[in-house]
């Protein structure tokens, strides 16, 4: 199968959906001629014109609000938010308006919009351009949240997101834009709420999201060399969350580590760990372990930044301890 980059995969997904449905449009800063600073959208304005690939001023709450209104009245906007960190600027439009409109109108109004943005540290971009804030939006009822972990997922999830009648937030990992993966030429969609088991194992389950899927995969390889067989699962969407697949794996291996790049406290890892505790407690041989980003603003200095995110080595070490039973009484 051909291999393309995550960036090309997103570009293809948008182009295909824009060809298929003329109500789909893109709106954001430097999305047209510049194709975004990450060049993900290059070429789209040439095909679809400036009325459907719309450059905006640096006015995030403004264009997000316009997208919400446009979505409520018959279009399907794809909002481009240059950095995930800017989500704080649009919180009212996203969380008070887009997320609640369907509910507050008793099901009469829909907001079929996609917010595409990114996450991920270690680009030496400091505290305001490095955050992974998906837990913030996952907390708000009414928003779906997708976390593609490869070019394949990025394309399939984007197409599903655009056709979804709800507001969907997609966080891409900005370090992965140039990473290649096999992506079929033929059309495919990835349904929301279906986790993917990337590797089967019997000793421990590693649940990783987005950028952390690769970390879990690397850890699993290293563990296998030591005779520990790890199962690796990518939930792909955290809202909706495919509990059934996660629980089945937890029951099978009896040990689980959840790895996610958001801050560890009050985050995605805690939510998943607690669901497993609630629903698979008697099958577990060890407490479900959370591994998130350190609870500090992301520091600029490479000497500090690199130790704030989970690494394969860290996952391996924790997995070993869980398998040896060392953490059973950790309190």
């Amino acid at each position, binding site marked *: 199968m051909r291999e393309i980059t995550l960036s090309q995969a997103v570009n293809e997904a948008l182009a295909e959906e824009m060809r298929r449905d003329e109500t789909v449009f893109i709106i954001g800063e430097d999305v047209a001629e*510049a194709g975004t600073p990450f060049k993900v959208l290059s070429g789209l304005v040439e095909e679809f014109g400036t009325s459907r690939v719309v450059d905006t001023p640096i006015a995030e709450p*403004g264009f997000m609000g316009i997208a919400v209104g446009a979505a409520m009245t018959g279009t399907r906007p794809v909002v481009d938010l240059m950095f995930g960190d800017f989500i704080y600027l649009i919180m009212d439009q996203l969380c008070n308006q887009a997320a609640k409109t369907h509910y507050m109108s008793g099901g009469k109004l829909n907001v079929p919009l996609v917010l595409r943005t990114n996450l991920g540290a270690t680009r*030496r971009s*400091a505290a*305001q351009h490095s955050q992974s804030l998906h837990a913030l939006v996952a907390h708000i009822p009414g928003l779906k949240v997708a976390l593609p972990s490869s070019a394949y997922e990025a394309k399939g999830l984007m197409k599903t997101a655009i056709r979804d009648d709800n507001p969907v937030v997609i966080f891409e990992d900005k370090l992965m834009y140039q990473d290649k993966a096999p992506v079929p030429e033929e059309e495919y969609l990835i349904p929301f709420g279906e986790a993917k088991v990337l590797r089967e194992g019997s000793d421990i389950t590693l649940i990783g999201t987005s950028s952390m899927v690769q970390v879990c995969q690397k850890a699993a390889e290293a563990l296998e060399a030591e005779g520990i067989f790890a199962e690796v699962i990518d939930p792909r969407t955290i809202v909706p969350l495919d509990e059934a697949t996660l629980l089945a794996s937890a029951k099978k291996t009896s040990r689980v580590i959840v790895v996610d790049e958001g801050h560890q406290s009050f985050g995605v890892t805690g939510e998943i760990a607690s669901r497993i505790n609630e629903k698979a407690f008697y099958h577990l041989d060890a407490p479900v372990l959370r591994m998130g980003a350190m609870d500090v603003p992301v520091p*600029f200095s490479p000497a500090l930044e690199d130790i704030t995110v989970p690494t394969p080595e860290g996952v391996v070490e924790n997995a070993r301890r869980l398998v040896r039973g060392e953490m059973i009484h950790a309190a």
Partner: protein
Amino acid sequence: MADAPKHNAEDYLRMYRQMVRIRTFEDNANQLYLSAKMPGLTHMYSGEEAVAVGICEALRTTDKITSTHRGHGHCVAKGAEFKEMFCELLGKEEGYCRGKGGSMHIADQSNGNLGANAIVGGSMGIATGAAFTAKLLGKDDVTVCFFGDGATAQGLWYEVMNMAALWKLPVIYACENNGYSEYTKTDEIAAGSIMARAEAFGIESHQVDGQDVLAVNALTEKLVERARKGEGPFFMELMTYRYHGHHVGDINREYYRSKDEEKDWKENRDPIIRFRSWLVAEGIASEEEVEAMNAEIKDDAKAAVDYALSAKYPDQSEVDMHVFTDVTHALA
């Protein structure tokens, strides 16, 4: 050059020096990026020196400024040293922010710089709040809020301008109009006139040639003095130009900006060349003296770069320090 206000030779030479220091700092920063010695990206201030220097030379140390993602120039102009700046740029312990901030958060806080900011428009509230403090505590400090033309699209500005005008706060909003917001011309993202935005709140507004350090300085001195007396806020639109790309990685930029245009600004309106000719013509400095000053600044920068390159990184134990003021290690 605009009519010179009453300054002595020393003031003029310091202004020149500060402009050259900014240009030299940026040339070195660019080299560090190109030779892969600097982590991440940075936004160069080259070309806009007369704005930062003309304004900051009208301020006292206790006056405050807020800066932007393109903040090295403001930082130097408000009195920062090369050594701590290069250390910050390279993420070293002796940097102004102990390596935690980097280029986009660089600031010498002891000189009243409240920080560079990676959120466009993110400092507009902070600047207005600093002016609020001055008024509340009865100080005569003035705050200058630097931001770009692109930042005028941020709604926050309209909210804080309204309050600053209602409450007569001692803040000067300084819009560095360099014609571009990232890869887009200002005309394409700003409807109507930028000055009119401030005027709509009854804020006295001025447009000035941002490549003329004397014009910028003369205007700022007047406005600062009046702001100290409670006649603020004010708005200044400084017409200027950035020589490099939006950031150091923005190399192929002909799709949004022509080489001829860049050449014209660099050759015909350069703020340093213009001021240098004026200094020589007025007999304030000779060509030789100017050259000697340039060479000394170059050496200073080189020494600071060398120092920063071999300086040590912060100890890993610093990672959870400074999360809270009253907890030494947040995760201990």
